[in-house]
């Protein structure tokens, strides 16, 4: 334990460990096992009403509740940051109902619940990344009917997705999807990686950490097991590319991280900072350490 880790909070005994009852957690774990066994396949599960609103991470919270143990160290991020209000709210929820230690340091966490980002610091094999998923179905905006999309997955019929990407190129000259960019998992299922920027897509491929996805409102679970091939859909003549910035982070100077844009004044002066707050803070600490060393 260090300064970044918060002391073991007191668990609220009025609720079962991590809020959900044991039967429900068992049901979710069964669903997760199936999801891990069939990478990228959407498993329906009996999603429960959580005391937070649908769309605010109830799917991710149910997954976290189902896998959390008393010894786990939990990190929660929203848009890459530990201190956005919803991340704070979810972290507090588990600190209260499970009494687990929480951290902001990526390498120290055993379970990381995330909304819309994969941390910049590479994950390791003892970590599980839990994604909050709004719309689990990658084909939903092409085909609104669930009956149809389930059939398309079953038949490995993803022609419409390629047509959509092709139409983007024909219309705009580029594939006009910048987040929630569809991926092919283990050469079988097309999967929505949740609304992470496509910048993060390469981190899914052959990740040593287990990736679990929970969609509460839509009542679906899916998973990418460790060391699974995850390929972003593209064409030979229009290969998948990630975003890059001409600027670097105004705080830590990083040129390799996903940057958020800030507008500083009325005339629209921009500044860019890392979206991953922990990554940024660690780099600043490192730089200060180096300065002190050179100063001596």
């Amino acid at each position, binding site marked *: 334990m260090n300064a970044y880790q918060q002391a073991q909070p007191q668990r609220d005994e009025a*609720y079962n460990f991590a809020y959900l*009852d044991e039967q429900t957690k068992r049901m979710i774990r069964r669903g997760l096992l199936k999801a891990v066994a069939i990478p990228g396949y959407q498993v*329906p*599960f*009996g999603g*429960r*009403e*959580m*005391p937070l*609103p*649908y*769309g*605010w991470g*109830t799917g991710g919270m149910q997954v976290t509740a189902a896998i959390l143990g008393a010894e786990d160290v939990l990190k929660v991020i*929203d*848009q*890459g*940051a530990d*201190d*956005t*209000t*919803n*991340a*704070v*709210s979810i972290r*507090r929820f588990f600190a209260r109902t499970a009494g687990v230690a929480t951290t902001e340091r990526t390498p120290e966490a055993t379970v990381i619940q995330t*909304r*819309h*980002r994969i941390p910049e610091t590479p994950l390791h094999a003892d970590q599980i990344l839990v994604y909050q998923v*709004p719309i689990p179905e990658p084909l939903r905006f092409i085909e*609104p*009917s*669930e*009956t149809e999309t389930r059939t398309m997955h079953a038949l490995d019929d993803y022609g419409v997705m390629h047509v959509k990407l092709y139409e983007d190129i024909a219309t*705009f*000259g*580029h594939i*006009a999807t*910048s*987040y*929630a960019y569809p991926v092919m998992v283990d050469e079988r299922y097309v999967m929505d990686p949740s*609304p*992470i*920027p*496509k*910048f993060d897509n390469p981190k899914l491929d052959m990740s040593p950490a287990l990736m679990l996805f929970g969609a509460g*409102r839509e*009542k679906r679970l899916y998973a990418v097991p460790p060391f699974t091939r995850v390929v972003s859909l593209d064409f030979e003549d229009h290969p998948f590319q990630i*975003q890059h*910035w001409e600027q670097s982070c*105004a*705080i830590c100077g990083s040129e390799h991280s*996903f*940057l*958020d*844009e*800030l507008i500083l004044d009325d005339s629209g002066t921009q*500044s860019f*900072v890392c*979206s991953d707050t922990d990554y940024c803070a660690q780099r600043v600490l490192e730089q200060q350490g180096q300065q002190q060393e050179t100063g001596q």
Partner: protein
Amino acid sequence: MYVAVKGGEQAIDNAHSLLAQKRRGDTSISELTVEQIRQQLPLAVARVMTEGSLYDEQLAALAIKQAAGDMIEAIFLLRAYRTTLPRFSASVPIDTSDMQLNRRLSATFKDLPGGQLLGPTFDYTHRLLDFSLLADGQYPGPQPQAEATLEPCPRVLGLLAKEGLIKNEADNAEAVPDITRDPVEYPASRAQRLQALARGDEGFLLALSYSTQRGYGRNHPFAGEIRIGEVEVWIEPEELGFPIAIGGIEVTECEMINQFVGSGSEPAQFTRGYGLAFGHAERKAMAMALVDRSLRAEEFNEDIQSPAQQEEFVLAHCDNVEAAGFVSHLKLPHYVDFQSELELIRKLRASTHQEAKP
């Protein structure tokens, strides 16, 4: 520079105490009690119980108080509490024929066994603001006749069914699925559909049912019977082997009589739509019955063209707790997604610019 995202914890605590103040209002005015809400806003309580899927007047009233009168928020509070409750038994189906009626009407027959019973209704009130309620209004109350009795009131649609004029609804003896435990998969069974509609948002169902009346999936409805009253709830514990009554609940039931179907081999028959809600909730029960019938389009080989006939469209969007959550999540930060879109749109514009130049 980090002002925008730092300080979340303190902001949340402050927001909570401001909300508490907003809910309480002027502290020189005495605080509303839960019992007052339960007694004096019974229709609000009924809606929260119905869409919250939990029959508990006191908790529904508490939810309304805590939600400062925001009904969808109150429904959400009650649902979130309901999830934590253990299930110890499923009840025997309630028998609405045996209801202790306080309102009953049929728009299809002028008179019928048991008669029509207007009961407490806004129907024939003139919607004129009653300024006497601004002051401490007098409460005249009804003058019940001690010797009055209620005749047996057989169900109107049952009378039609005896003659074979309406399609018979038989128990298919299958186990009733619970959509709050197992997710709805499409196509859904009628039992799942009715559960989803019973929990569904009154406003959404009202609008959909209205759309069927205006030609988007018309099915020629008549209000066959609406009955409101108290029914007993029975359970049959395994260890006992016989059913026992555990209490009474107030429900509103609506059975719609709809356009007939038939074919060369089958004689023409009316069809029905069914609505049921907790408490006095007539508008909800009627809207539910209309939408139930329009969702039976496939069963009766009708063309499916309108929103109210499309099962996935209706069931996936009728839940106001889900809908409110997902719409409100747009308030959460989307810096990352938006940044991705910004980067893309700048790139697209830059390439159009370059192409336009030479």
